[in-house]
């Protein structure tokens, strides 16, 4: 299938990308080719087949309700952000 301008804009919005016009054109071409390729799956008869979403053998893995030490404390995690004040992450104005 050919990807339209409207579709690429919709996908960019869903993906949170601010694409330049030239990049949009390139992605339109790339995605059209990829969608054509994955469309091959249409040929396969899957009627009556149950879907598989994961291949892990176990179900309902329980653990005691105790905190597992994740090594990094609050200071170490806050140190990773670009702007911090009073132990809070600073972001641009929201309202």
């Amino acid at each position, binding site marked *: 299938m050919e990807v339209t301008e409207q579709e690429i804009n919709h996908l960019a919005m869903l993906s949170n990308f601010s694409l330049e016009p030239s990049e949009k054109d390139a992605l339109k071409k790339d995605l059209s080719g990829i969608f054509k390729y994955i469309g091959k799956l249409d040929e396969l008869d899957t009627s009556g087949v149950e*879907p598989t979403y994961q*291949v892990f053998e176990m179900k309902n893995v329980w653990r005691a309700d105790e905190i597992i030490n994740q090594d990094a404390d609050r200071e170490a995690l806050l140190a990773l952000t670009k702007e911090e004040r009073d132990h809070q*992450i600073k972001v641009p104005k*929201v309202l």
Partner: protein
Amino acid sequence: MKIANSSTTAVSLVKAALSRIEETKEWNIFTFVDKKAALERAEEIDARIKKGETVGRLAGVPYALKANFLSKHRPADASVKILTEFTSPIDSTTAEKLDKEDAICVGCVNMDAFAHGSSTENSYFGPTKNSTDKTRVAGGSSGGSAVAVALDCVQFATGSDTGGSIRQPATFNGIYGIKPTYGTISRYGVVAMASSFDVIGFLAKSASDLDLLMSITAGQDPKDQTSLPDYYGADDTKLDKKSVGYIKEFMDSPALDPEIKSALESKLSALRAKGYDIVELSMPTLEYALPTYYIIQPAEVASNLSRYDGIRYGFRTKELNAPDKTPLDLLFENTRNEGFMRENKRRIMIGNFVLSSGFYDAYFLKAAKARTLIINEFNKAFEKVDAILSPASPNPAFKLGEKVDDPVSMYLEDVMSVTANLAGIPAIAFPAGTNKAGLPLGLQIMGPRRSDKNLIKLVEELA
């Protein structure tokens, strides 16, 4: 593996590794070299050996971490801009276990950004070159890991395999690589790509090295709820049918390089001579393995990569001014737009397409059903045979730049390897000589779930 002891010091092993890293700079393998810390660690291990203390099973062995593994105080950028300003405050479980056995991390190695790719050309730091021919690709996404091992910078390297990322670069560089059964090794502290496929594994120069690394790192981890209780070496699936299969559809594929085909045929003859039954398997659903994978995997990628927003860690855009948008919207959009590579964007957009309303049933649900059929086909095959011998990729290392502008032809690199990830089964890549041009050739062997250790034994028989 060459381990530090009373006659070989850890310092000499680390120094040899560091000078080899310096000599092989042209290949663009390492994205970070941890020289000072590695030498200090080596001195500490030597002091313990001198005192007669017991040291770990990997004492003084220099190794490299693929750039998507987190380890304390080192960068963990997954070779992508959006993570370049990130230094890990935690250790991945794998790094921690290797550290406990006194292995020494000498640095981090290049990969396709976020492990999206099959050549290591899609890296923010530029491509890693093939160990044998610098005009060719390393393979990917664990290209840096493979070349670091092949060129003796390190004795082993960590890797991750979502659709062939350990096995294809291993074969492109003439070494061994294991993709274990899904869930065998904890994924805690490794950058997630597609969670129903991702596994941790290793690249090394022998099957016995892979065995040692597996016995050290396999096991359940409270920090990863998808890790299996340790079965490795204890309740492994037996391979006692004395029967190995090959896939007719792969052998007949026009994409299969004739020299890889004949390497595979000669390994089958060698097995026949050792008393194995060789069985031709028809697995027609595998024709749909790649489209299935390139629907489910991007869907999981889109979901996993939605966390990168520039707020809590990593790169953050400086472009926050545009007439019709709020600064917060621009923070998300521009950080993601500048921070991801083109291939990351493709996959996120494919994922959001196949999951979006109106397309979900036709793509994602359809692929999830196809995955069931593929698993059933493997289960049926393993009723007849212990293991399946197949190419890991249809061709040896290709030229740099050859496929980089054609995403579908790059995806076709994974056509034979993704099958193991779809089914969650173990697969090991191993060397199978060279072609007429002198390039390494390799194959893979796949077995039923939890047959990892017995599969390694089978690879040793094939060597």
